[in-house]
């Protein structure tokens, strides 16, 4: 990605504490339209918290969130969703009493703000894209964990996001399924969506991401071209030092 492109989403000098010490400290990042920005970091380094701050679930203690040039730090999570921020949850938060169809209906009616007819079309497209057409009527609460994660992705897409935040959606997939997922996300980015993708499976991100940022104890400790970033000694140390069983780079 070129530096000349306008940023779709940016965070500037973000700090966040849940009452105790800062969980995020002076975090600045940006992603442009069409870009896939990967984020890795050990457990508890603040990745999910960063998504909470971007999506409006958590208010930061310092810093700003900027969506397409507009400061959205004071907007509610609902307003941000309407303005183009779509997210998935690491622990699936599907509407368990609703059908797959109704889960997507909520996203299209409120997040995307579509009329019934337009919603219908988008839901069908999304179901096909996420390979869910055979499960439309299934109750979300009765799906397997893997299927609920897929529904998370489908539902986030059904809000018609300009910025898509993915929090560990590849865990538990076979290599072949992970490849399919990378292809899907790459295609979405090619349509102009800015994707920020948290994943513990480093090899997935080195395939998919244009850039990689590494979080360590709430700070960005490295960012850049994925393979180069992974070769940095401080990244290897923090990452492989703590997670010896991780997949190696290919």
């Amino acid at each position, binding site marked *: 990605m070129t530096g000349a492109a306008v940023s779709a989403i940016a965070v500037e000098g973000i700090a966040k504490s849940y009452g105790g010490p800062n969980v995020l400290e002076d975090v600045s990042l940006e992603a442009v339209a069409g870009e896939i920005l990967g984020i890795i970091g050990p457990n508890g380094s603040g990745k999910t918290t960063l998504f909470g701050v971007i*999506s*409006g*679930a958590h208010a930061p203690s310092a810093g700003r969130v900027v969506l397409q040039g507009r400061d959205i730090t004071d907007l*509610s*999570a*609902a*307003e941000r*969703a*309407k303005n183009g921020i779509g*997210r998935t*949850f690491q622990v699936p*938060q*599907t*509407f*368990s*009493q*609703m*059908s797959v*169809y*109704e889960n997507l*209906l*909520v*996203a299209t*009616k*409120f*997040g*995307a*703000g579509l009329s*019934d007819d337009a*919603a*219908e079309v988008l*839901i069908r497209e999304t179901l096909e894209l996420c390979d869910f057409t055979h499960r*439309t*009527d299934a109750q979300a609460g009765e799906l397997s964990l893997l299927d609920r994660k897929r529904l998370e992705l489908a*539902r986030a897409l059904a*809000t018609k996001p300009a910025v898509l935040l993915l929090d560990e959606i590849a865990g538990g997939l076979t290599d072949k399924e992970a490849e399919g997922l990378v292809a899907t996300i790459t295609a979405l980015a090619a349509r102009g969506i800015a994707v920020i993708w948290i994943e513990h499976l480093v090899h997935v991100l080195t395939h998919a991401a244009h850039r990689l940022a590494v979080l360590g104890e709430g700070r960005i400790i490295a960012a850049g071209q994925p393979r180069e970033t992974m070769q940095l000694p401080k990244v290897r140390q923090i990452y492989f030092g703590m997670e010896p069983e991780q997949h190696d780079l290919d």
Partner: protein
Amino acid sequence: MRLPSINRSFIVLAVIVLFLILVPILGSRSTVNLVAEMAAVLAIALMWNLLAGFGGMVFMGFQVFVGIGGYAVFMAANGFQVLPFPFILLSAALCALTALAIMPILSRLQGAQFAIASWVISEVVRLTVFQTSVLGGGGGISLTAMRSVPRELRMYGTYGSAALVLIVALVVCVFLMRSRVGLALRAIRDNATAAEAMGIDLRRTQRLVMMIAAAVAGAGGGAYYMLALQIGPGTAFSMNWMAITLFVVILGGIGTLEGPIVGVVVYFLLRETLSDLGSVYFILLGLMAILVTLLFPKGAWGGLRQLIGQDLLPIRRNPSESKG
């Protein structure tokens, strides 16, 4: 036979409306009064179910709207010495405003705190009415405006008011729950975090539903006390209203539209046949509630639904018939 779900709702609504029209034509005086009372109670229960069953807002001081609705009719009709019937609109308006006024406090609370706060608010209003002499203080007031009204007009007017409130309550439930607002309400109840992340404004949705429920319940309270001709703070703001509402909604099936309808029929059947038994009647009511909830965790309607195999007033949205 499986009809498209909205048509099924229309048929059920039409049957209920037909029943409500036939009662004054065919029924005796006491039947008409009984059905009027049932209609008012059912309207109130449907609205509580809308809040608690669909919206997850367990409003334990719901009698506040019954009381304010009742007092509004009495004060206005007595003040002008005119027919009281149209003033159920005033009841509705006042209760909607009350809901609007208390929502900033309640929307900060959840679960048990919400329930207790709503009950405290109701108690505050009851005590205030108790201390206010213009409102008749502790002794209450009678509907003097009704004295000069001919008996027939009094009966049919009251019945008509209660029946209308019930029809409005049913139509509101069916259409609201199938609408965008109903979808939002179900989503919030299901998973508030996800609902916000999908673009749903929690507070706005809850405030709107709260105002609607308060308005219709207030009109129900107005109709109910027109029938009683007498109102006082001890009864109108009594926790007894909550007991009846809980019985009707939970025994019938909370979080369904059919449940309270079944529940109100069961409640009045028991009351009309057993209330001569005195305190044994209350024990029987309690046992009945326990038994049904043990046998049918989803209420009496949950059991019936298994027999019928389909919802009569469905709210679930399916592809290409989701309009409404």
